[in-house]
């Protein structure tokens, strides 16, 4: 599973699949209390892409066999809504569980019945087995769908349900248990003839040993310190000579860094991709593989963009992977939907990572290309029906791409959580072939208690290019206000030449953005478009500000003007712009070129559909102030511009620069969250880099450190308190 591949904390060449140790290293920085896929997620209007071709593939959509009368969904957000959608289609009553802060959440409103299972913290509500069991009993639900995360892979929960004769919509307890243990699952996989990462589990004693083992495993290999961490004592070797050198250096480094010179050798996976196979099995020994999902674009072990199928697999590799996945599923008598995760190297060698015994976050893309409704299949299987399909019935129709839209700031290590109220929210549902799985609506709060995912934005096309271009449109049309979101990053990823060509790996983000994500970099032409749009928007707003309706006692002087000289500031630079207008069309001269910008100029709409030199562009106006500041979202990234008259621009240069407060002596919370621990008290002397307090937000603990050495003047937070972004935590003298 992805959580084991650190893509950030290590130099890219050293990434390997010795999962546990790398994972531990990452955790030292910021640990995920729950793994990525335990993420509960949102969804409201559940829009299925109209995939015409695949309708015939699943004829069962039309008539539903008797399954259950009532299903309780032990989850929240997107996935709860997703499951209810299918239940509703199948004529099954639904029961929602919710924490008290979720009382008016979308999934609660969508359900036929809802039960509050406790206060906001997940361990007191969505993980509160007693309360959920009580909810099952009181509502008379016959089955429970756990979604993903929370209790979905909890064998105890499955066992308790079974004991009460309630169906668990997922695999049996023993399969959950077998696949839940990392070592055991590898052993089972090995025994089932599934490829696992070759390596030598013992300690390598001598250079000759190393060479022999390396030869056994096959180059390239990775030599690393048994006690290792942070890339120290790690070497990649592509041949015998490098193995010898590597052994020597690594021994020395390991000894000096860790005081322990023992080394391990394992296969080095170069440019690893994360590709997983969806499997579906029934309780009668039948199992299918439903093709792959490419999930290599990740940050901090969390998937960001997924697609199905993968650009990388050929039919043979796909079949080989699929067959191995099915073998594994059968080896543990797996039933229901599950996912077998593989690492794939640049030579299409693939190695088993782990199996997820639940519905996966990114399951929609598989649904779109196969035409199957996985939730419906899970419910059927849980009832005991045999699979309807044969392997040869499983098609790959077209291409599907999923972007995970998160409430987080992509400019801070590819995404630090942000919270807030969705003051405005509009999904791009006006577009065809777009599916949005979300569990929130306008007015919803993204709180610190749960995963910050806003939605899964899925687009479909006959070809990958079509799906990608649809994704661009969908991201441009997606209106999210009130929380910081990662659409800038998503849009950059899906338009990056490397991504378009399919040249990706789990290291994609750190490789493409070695200095962190900086947003869209404007080309000269893009900059002209942005400046022209801002100038035209400004003029149309100015014109409206002079439009008073009704009869006026003192007549207003008319301001017939056809030409405006303006000065547009962008990133500290001033650009002279000349705007002339005929009707709704503005001709803007900027940077020696003339651009024709036309549109509806609806100043109330968050979307600003324009035609620039006849090319349609969907911009968004994020804010517009009376003093000329305009914030426009252009190609996914928001840009701040200021449009002023030449006079105002000239006079602006006399305005004093406001000195920002000295931030080295104050510590502010970089994100909303709760204070886990405060390590200092007033009067303490702290050294630069010393931990001052720990803030937990969503699933991450972040250590706040002193920016300089000094004495603590005052502490403004205490453990257990909730803090907002920018709140003052500690002041130094």
């Amino acid at each position, binding site marked *: 599973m992805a959580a084991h591949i650190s893509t950030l904390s290590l130099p890219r060449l050293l990434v390997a699949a010795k999962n546990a140790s790398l994972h531990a290293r990452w955790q030292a920085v910021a640990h995920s209390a729950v793994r990525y896929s335990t993420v509960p997620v949102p969804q409201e209007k559940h829009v299925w892409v109209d995939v015409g071709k695949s309708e015939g593939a699943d004829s069962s959509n039309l008539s539903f066999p008797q399954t259950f009368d009532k299903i309780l969904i032990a989850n929240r957000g997107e996935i709860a809504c997703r499951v209810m959608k299918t239940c509703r289609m199948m004529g099954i009553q639904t029961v929602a569980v919710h924490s008290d802060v979720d009382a008016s959440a979308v999934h609660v409103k969508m359900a036929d019945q809802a039960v509050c299972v406790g206060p906001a913290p997940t361990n007191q509500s969505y993980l509160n087995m007693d309360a959920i069991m009580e909810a099952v009993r009181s509502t008379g639900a016959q089955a429970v769908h756990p979604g993903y995360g929370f209790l979905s892979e909890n064998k105890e929960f499955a066992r308790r349900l079974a004991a009460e004769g309630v169906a668990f919509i997922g695999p049996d307890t023993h399969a959950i248990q077998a696949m839940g243990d990392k070592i055991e699952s590898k052993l089972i996989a090995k025994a089932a003839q599934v490829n696992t990462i070759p390596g030598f589990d013992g300690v390598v004693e001598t250079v000759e040993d190393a060479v022999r083992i390396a030869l056994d495993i096959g180059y390239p290999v990775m030599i690393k310190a048994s006690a290792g961490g942070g890339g120290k004592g790690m070497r990649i070797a592509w041949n015998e000579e490098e193995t010898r050198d590597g052994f020597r250096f690594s021994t020395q480094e390991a000894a000096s860094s860790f005081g322990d010179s023992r080394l391990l050798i394992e296969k080095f996976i170069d440019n690893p991709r994360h590709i997983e196979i969806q499997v579906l099995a029934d309780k009668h020994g039948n199992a299918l593989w439903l093709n792959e999902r490419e999930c290599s674009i990740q940050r901090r072990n969390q998937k960001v963009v997924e697609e199905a199928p993968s650009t990388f697999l050929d039919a043979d590799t796909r079949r080989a992977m699929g067959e191995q996945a099915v073998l594994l599923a059968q080896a543990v008598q797996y039933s229901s939907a599950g996912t077998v995760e593989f690492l794939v190297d640049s030579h299409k060698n693939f190695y088993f990572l782990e199996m997820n015994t639940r519905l996966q976050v990114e399951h929609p893309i598989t649904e779109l290309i196969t035409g199957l409704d996985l939730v419906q299949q899970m419910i059927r299987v849980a009832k005991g029906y045999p699979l309807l399909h044969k392997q040869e019935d499983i098609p790959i129709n077209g291409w599907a791409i999923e972007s995970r839209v998160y409430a987080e700031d992509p400019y801070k290590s590819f995404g630090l959580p942000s919270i807030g109220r969705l003051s405005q929210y509009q999904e791009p549902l006006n577009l065809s072939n777009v599916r949005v799985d979300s569990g929130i609506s306008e007015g919803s709060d993204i709180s610190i208690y749960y995963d910050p995912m806003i939605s899964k934005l899925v687009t479909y096309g006959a070809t990958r290019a079509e799906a990608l271009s649809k994704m661009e449109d969908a991201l441009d049309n997606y209106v999210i206000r009130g929380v910081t979101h990662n659409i800038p990053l998503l849009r950059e990823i899906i338009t990056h030449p490397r991504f378009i060509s399919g040249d990706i790996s789990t290291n994609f983000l750190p490789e493409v953005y070695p200095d962190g994500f900086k947003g869209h970099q404007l080309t000269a032409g893009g900059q002209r478009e942005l400046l022209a749009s801002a100038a035209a928007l400004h003029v149309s707003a100015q014109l409206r500000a*002079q*439009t008073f309706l009704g009869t006026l006692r003192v007549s207003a002087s008319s301001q017939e003007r056809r030409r405006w000289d303006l000065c547009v500031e962008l990133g500290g630079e001033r650009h002279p712009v000349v705007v002339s207008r005929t009707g709704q069309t503005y001709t803007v001269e900027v940077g020696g070129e003339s651009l024709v910008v036309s549109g509806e100029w609806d100043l109330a709409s968050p979307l600003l559909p324009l035609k620039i030199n006849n090319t349609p562009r969907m911009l968004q106006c994020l804010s517009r102030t009376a003093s000329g500041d305009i914030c426009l979202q252009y190609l996914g990234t928001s840009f701040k511009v200021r449009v002023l008259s030449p006079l105002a621009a000239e006079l602006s240069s006399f*305005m004093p620069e406001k000195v920002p407060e000295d931030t080295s002596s104050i510590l502010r919370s970089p994100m909303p969250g709760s204070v886990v621990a405060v390590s200092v008290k007033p009067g303490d002397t702290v050294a630069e880099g010393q931990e001052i307090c720990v803030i937990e937000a969503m699933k991450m603990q972040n250590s706040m450190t002193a920016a300089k050495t000094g004495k603590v003047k005052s502490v403004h937070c205490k453990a257990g308190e909730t803090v907002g972004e920018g709140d003052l935590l500690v002041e130094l003298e």
Partner: protein
Amino acid sequence: MAAFTVARSSSRLISGFRTSFGGLARVKHGVVAATASQVSLQQQCRRYAVGQLSVKERIDKKRQEALLGGGQPRIDAQHKKGKLTARERIELLLDPESFVEYDMFVEHRCSDFGMEQDRNKFPGDSVVTGQGRINGRLVYVFSQDFTVFGGSLSGAHAQKICKVMDQAMMVGAPVIGLNDSGGARIQEGVESLAGYADIFLRNVLASGVVPQISLIMGPCAGGAVYSPALTDFTFMVKDTSYLFITGPDVVKSVTNEDVTQEELGGAKTHTAVSGVAHYAFENDVDALLNLRDFFNFLPLSNQDAAPVMESHDPSDRLVPAMDTIVPSETTKAYDMLDIIHAIVDEKNFFEIMPSYAKNIVVGFARMDGRTVGIVGNQPKVASGCLDINSSVKGARFVRFCDAFNIPIITFVDVPGFLPGTAQEYGGIIRHGAKLLYAFAEATVPKITIITRKAYGGAYDVMSSKHLRGDVNYAWPSAEVAVMGAKGAVQIIFRGKDSQAEAEAEYVEKFANPFPAAVRGFVDDIIEPSTTRKRICRDLEVLASKKQVNPWKKHANMPL
């Protein structure tokens, strides 16, 4: 003797030539010898003989001088302080080329302390006045010129201001004052004080007739502060403007307090602590551009209806997010601004006094293009209770709206008046009465929405039906009662055991909109998502509302 007299009387004319005559012009009037006068007299006659060119030249010269105010070095000094000149400010505030200047040739009349000297005379003196347009609409402005005697107020200066104010009153158009003045022109003594009083009087007479706005863009100290205080809105510029009765030096000598100018009377102090100013802008440019925007909310005078602008926001837009905005627990806070932003046109809300008495929110917005005044309790701050400061803040705003025909929309979530000795000793009774008074007296369209709590006397105060609210709505989450359930039960069932039960009964009975609805104290219980639509429709109907209070010389508001 006669010659001498002639020489004297002509000296004024001569001064007009001072630049063209070069060295001669620098001769100080007071020391002009008779002979010298005669020489200049001859020269002057010669100039006249040339024709009218000289007058035109003089006009041009004067104008040139007037445009330069106190001269380039002082202009540079002004810029260095991060401030614009009086004329630059007017140019930015008004539509291009719309400014019509008055009294450009007025000079001060002081003849003491060497003030009569030529170098101490500046055409236009220390203020620029006139009229112009903001987005096409008429406005009268005066802009004090700090580069001339530190913007100090002379008799002439005051006279110029009075002239535009008088005309503004006659025409029915707002007055905007851009204040940047060191204070009284000390050399003029009582003349300057008289000038202030003349302005104060006009401020008072214009109050409620035309909107008056003061933008403090520099110092404004001593008696001068009372002019902004009398106007409807006082805006300030951060870091460069100050308002105080006495400066830090005097404070130190009288009360021995150490205080900086900024702490004593800066924008932060007055917008957050004293409540003297209504808003603080970042800098001069920001302030003036925003003032243009603000001006669009206001009618020109009390004879005009609230302006209606073209709006792109559909008046029947539903706001689904409103259905979930009020938390189910009655003790939990939410942000009233979220409601306001979601309901008004294009989320455009100009909040007045956003940093002062934050438990009440007031400001301007538009509904279907029409300016409205919004008043709302803010549950996020002090549970939205009414206290001294919030009552006064709300009352002044309501009275402005009423004076200028701006409909008032009130969002109510108020648990009552704030208890405690601080409030009682401070006179909450007297101050709370102001808000009550203002709402009761107002005859503009009044629409009230009870979003949640409306407890006790505060329910009555907040534009209730009983105070002539035209349309009063309750959301399903509304609770109109004398007090919260717990307190009520403790009183009704004092000393009895079954309090929990009684509390439940009380909640059942009063913690909902029905008690008010069955009595007709609210006109309807509405789905929150339809609030915008309902308000827009009601405003259309109420546009022709006519209501007149009994004749009186003036009312006696509890001050």
